């Protein structure tokens, strides 16, 4: 048997172990090659498919690269003003308590302009899931400094590296919200390896299960990459993230009640 016929024998329906979930639409993603957003979209879609809640889930997309998330996941969506996704999600979950409401926000949206909204939504303990993608930079606008930018990190608006004496220190959002009594589940994950993606999937599933049990707010931070903003290749970005982001933003679950 030649190698080609052997491969053709393996490629059949009964041997299928991994394929794109039907909850993800066929639209080609506009993200740059290697962007973590693609992996996170896929994981959310897979969790929605596994829990069979496609017709009961409402997402709130932010302003930022992921503003067009409604083009990719086949559920109901709202699009919030910059940073105001937790406010919209609050209204949606209070008006429709049977729905699974989640916000999908980047660090420019959640940690900067929307910092007030997220703190108060966490403090009220709204029954929502917050997916927070932290890549330490403003990706969509061209790689400017964000509140989460690391000390001495070079960006378009900090060409000599971030000077913390004048611009403050990188914000640890997960640690901040974990202190609030309203949050039930606060975790920080990543998505650079297959193992990390599996862990992330478990965390997002736990978030949606908390919503089902009306437990309160689940805050899932994902440390991600922005290869275009960081001016590195996708694989180099992952290495840079492991070397520089993980020591300051340690992975793990901070709160699980």
């Amino acid at each position, binding site marked *: 048997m030649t190698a080609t016929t052997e491969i053709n024998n393996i490629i059949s329906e009964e041997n299928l172990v991994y394929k794109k979930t039907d909850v993800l639409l066929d639209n080609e993603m506009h993200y740059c090659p290697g962007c973590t957003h693609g992996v996170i979209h896929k994981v959310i879609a897979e969790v929605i498919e596994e829990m069979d809640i496609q017709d009961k889930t409402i997402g709130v997309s932010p302003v930022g690269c992921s503003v067009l998330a409604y083009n990719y996941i086949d559920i109901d969506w709202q699009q919030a003003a910059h940073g105001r996704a937790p406010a919209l999600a609050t209204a949606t979950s209070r008006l429709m308590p049977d729905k699974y409401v989640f916000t999908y926000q980047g660090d420019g949206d959640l940690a900067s302009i929307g910092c007030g909204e997220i703190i108060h939504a966490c403090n009220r303990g709204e029954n929502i899931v917050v997916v927070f993608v932290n890549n330490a930079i403003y990706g969509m606008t061209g790689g400017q400094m964000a509140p989460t930018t690391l000390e001495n990190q070079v960006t378009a608006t900090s060409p000599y590296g971030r000077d913390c004496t004048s611009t403050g220190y990188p914000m640890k959002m997960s640690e901040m919200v974990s202190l609030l009594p309203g949050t039930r589940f606060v975790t920080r994950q990543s998505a650079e390896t297959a193992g990390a993606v599996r862990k992330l999937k478990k965390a997002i599933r736990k978030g949606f299960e908390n919503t089902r049990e009306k437990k309160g707010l689940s805050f899932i931070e994902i440390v991600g990459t922005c290869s275009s903003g960081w001016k590195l290749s996708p694989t180099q970005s*992952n290495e840079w993230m492991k070397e520089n982001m993980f020591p300051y933003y340690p992975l793990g679950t901070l709160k699980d009640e």
Partner: protein
Amino acid sequence: MAKFKGAIVVDTEKCKGCGLCVVSCPTAVIELARGVNGKGYHYAHMANPDACIGCSSCGLVCPDTVITVYRAKAS
């Protein structure tokens, strides 16, 4: 001898050639092609198909979900 034989199918026109699957593959099956797709990206392909064990690592880390994975018991 591996217990399982695997194979992947890449949607080459949608692949953006980021190379994350290449580094995630534990058996070094995947490489970026010398040729390019319609958008000018060096798409991923199975360069060493005999070594594939169908572990789905490439599919899990692919940001554009262009990889479908198959696995069968080795005969």
